[in-house]
């Protein structure tokens, strides 16, 4: 029988992991909800942001917080580039083409990264203490990352509900023609959405590089998990993705402690498949 302390730790770590996974899922979902295209290469963009922060810190000695902000900028720029160069030309193509285009991007990023930076794992060492609270050990780094992820999500929420552009972005996902009748350019809104989605990837990247090592196939490791969370929460459903992220993170964390790290993922994926069987629209239903 396992020491309950480890279980509690696993739950806590699961919550902390959930925060960052939620961030990933929200960015992806935002873009899908508005532009109606899934960026298969989304987590690879996160990886690029991670590389950016890594190099800024280790090669140029930029302080971490500044590098993090730069990472967000990198993410936003990448988002814009992807939309302009790849997505815009194929907005009206059949879904398979759209998937393959972003799939091609995934290939491209992963192999280009291998070409440039080899398969070495790189991470940014952060010397922050490990806290001990009531007998459980919690990494302060993880705690900070979690808090910042929450902040980012709150900022996103405020942007989407309080600003004109944010509301317009929500509107365009509900009725593209109608928003054009109000004087808003759908194409421009897509661009902004892509920039915001990219920026979220940048935030996620900045928060992940201090917890995990980045390597060219990082996207292959975290990508499927992110998609799974989005589908589980209902593709396009922001609130659903938020909760699905925490649920999955718990399964992975607790499963990882009870059985093994890989099995934790396997169990999570199997649960996903079973849940799809039971509720094909995702736990919280699809975006209508």
């Amino acid at each position, binding site marked *: 029988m396992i020491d309950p302390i480890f279980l509690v730790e696993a739950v806590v770590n699961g919550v902390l992991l959930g925060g960052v996974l939620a961030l990933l899922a929200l960015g992806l979902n935002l873009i899908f909800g508005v532009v109606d295209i899934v960026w298969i290469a989304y987590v690879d963009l996160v990886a690029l942001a991670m590389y950016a922060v890594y190099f800024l810190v280790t090669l140029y000695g930029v302080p971490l917080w500044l590098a993090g902000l730069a990472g967000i900028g990198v993410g936003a720029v990448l988002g814009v580039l992807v939309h302009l160069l790849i997505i815009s030309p194929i907005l009206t193509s059949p879904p398979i083409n759209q998937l393959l285009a972003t799939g091609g991007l995934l290939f491209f990023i992963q192999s280009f990264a291998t070409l440039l930076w080899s398969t070495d794992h790189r991470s940014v060492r952060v010397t922050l203490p490990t806290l001990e609270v009531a007998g459980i050990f919690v990494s302060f780094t993880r705690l900070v990352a979690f808090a910042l992820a929450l902040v980012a999500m709150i900022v996103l929420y405020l942007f989407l509900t309080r600003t*004109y552009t944010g*509301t*317009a972005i*929500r*509107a365009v996902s*509900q*009725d593209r*023609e*109608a*928003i*054009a*009748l*109000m*004087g*808003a*350019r759908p194409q421009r809104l897509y661009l902004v959405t892509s920039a915001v989605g990219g920026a979220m990837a940048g935030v996620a990247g900045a928060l992940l590089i201090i917890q995990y090592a980045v390597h060219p196939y990082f996207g292959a490791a975290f990508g499927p998990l992110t998609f799974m969370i989005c589908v589980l929460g209902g593709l396009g459903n922001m609130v659903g993705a938020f909760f699905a992220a925490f649920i999955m993170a718990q399964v992975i964390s607790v499963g990882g402690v009870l059985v093994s790290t890989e099995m934790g993922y396997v169990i999570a994926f199997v649960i996903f498949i079973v849940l799809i069987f039971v509720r094909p629209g995702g736990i919280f239903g699809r975006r209508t």
Partner: protein
Amino acid sequence: MLELADVTAGYGAFTALWGVSLRVAAGEAVAVVGPNGAGKTTLLRTVSGLVAPRSGHVRFEGAELAGRPAYEVVAHGIAHVPEGRRLFPQLTVAENLKMGAYLPAARARFRESLERVYTLFPVLAERQGQRAGSLSGGEQQMLAVGRALMSRPRLILLDEPSMGLAPVMVLRLFDLIRRVREEGYTILVVEQNVRQVLKLVDRAYLLEVGRIKMEGRAADLAEQDFVRKAYVGL
């Protein structure tokens, strides 16, 4: 104010309008009536920029608008209340109205416009925080019109405003449109409910299978036998 000259427009291989010409003078209320499939909706969509005409001119206050995209047309002062209302169902009443004032010029006078709309349609003020999708048909129509007013237009295009509404609601709605008209807006309305709309407007056109078959003062048209027999009471 608005002039369509010999406009031909359609979708893909299908042509919905054949050489349509009409005029709306500033301050007027004009109706376009006709049966289903006549091309009435296409007509409005061509004016508002959702459809680009294949030939012909669309002139508004001297400016040529044919082929301009919708978001440019609305900046010239034309607001389109589309068929089926096309509200943003997940946004609240207030947010829908906010979107109506998306244009910078409209945003600057947002408060003023909002006041105006809430005065005209008090029920919208009551239901500010409610999701547009959960409103009743009549309320939705009012919101759609209100949203159009938020862009501070000079010309308002109304596409089948009575569609899907109970007869009592239809009367109330046309009353409200009358009040909007009294505020000084120029109106071009497309309707199947010929009897009600002819009471509302100054002039009307009859559109059948993409061509203007008749035009004249509303009172005159209402007298026309075949109009009465064929379309009245829908």
